[in-house]
């Protein structure tokens, strides 16, 4: 279909900036999109009969990356307590 009405996953990389400009963002739509993404993640990796370590470990890895990103400024400064 036309570019403005496609979902994010169906958009090619080259058309991404055009697509972002053509989307009219509103808190409700963003919230709904976030809710959809979270529930689809849960339904795929957590609410199954035989899930493995994958469901939680991906969340923990994401948390690790996010917290590293937030603390990068502090971590890149050389600190007094060295390795040995």
């Amino acid at each position, binding site marked *: 279909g036309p570019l403005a009405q496609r979902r994010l996953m169906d958009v090619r990389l080259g058309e991404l900036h055009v697509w972002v400009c053509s989307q009219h963002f509103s808190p409700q739509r963003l919230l709904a999109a976030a809710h959809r993404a979270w529930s689809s993640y849960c339904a*795929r*990796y*957590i*609410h*199954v*009969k*035989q*899930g*493995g*370590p*994958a*469901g939680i*470990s*991906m969340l923990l*890895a994401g948390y690790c990356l996010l917290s*590293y990103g937030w603390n*990068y400024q502090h*971590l*890149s400064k050389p*600190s007094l*307590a*060295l*390795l040995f």
Partner: protein
Amino acid sequence: VLHATRPLHTTQQSLAPVPPLPEKGGEVRHGLIPEEFFQFLYPKTGVTGPYMLGTGLLLYLLSKEIYVINHETVAAICIMSVIIYGIKKFGADVAAFADKLNEEKVATAQAMKNEALQTLQTAIEEEKKEQWRVEGRSYLFDAKRNNIAMLLEANYRERLLMVYNEVKKRLDYQVAMQNLKRQKEQDHMIQWVEKSVVQSITPQQQKESIAKCILDLKVLSKSAHATV
């Protein structure tokens, strides 16, 4: 009249029974990266593509010091190794234990359901039996009617016997009275006749009769001696 603001039960879909959970979740390689990523890169880079991407990314981060190595790195490495060792060693057992717990819950629910079904089934059969028993009503009432008829008959005959006995007693009484009267009259008459006869015997007649008797006896004794 039911006032409803929304139509009820118009579609096939209903909230119960809830569809069962899927058996296995999405495929994840090395516990962290979903399989879709590898499939996404397969057409362009083949099998080793994502691994090359990972290695290159790691080296870039390390060389550009975007990821600094400090004491936290060593701690992270130790913790990760322990966690991975634990999961690899005890993962299957823990999963089996959790599955067993789930199985028990499902089994108890199933047992309750089966029990409820069983009780309802027996109730249905009992009801059918009762309905069959109703057909025997006529026999029951015939038996009752026969019983009552017999009771009435027995009562009637008992009273008949009582009437007969009473009447017989009264008639016997009358007969006995008459017999008694007749007997008394007879006795009285006999006594009176005897008394008058005894009175009429004078002493003279008595002597004559005694002498006659003695003469008769002598004659008889003679004839008796003769025969012997």
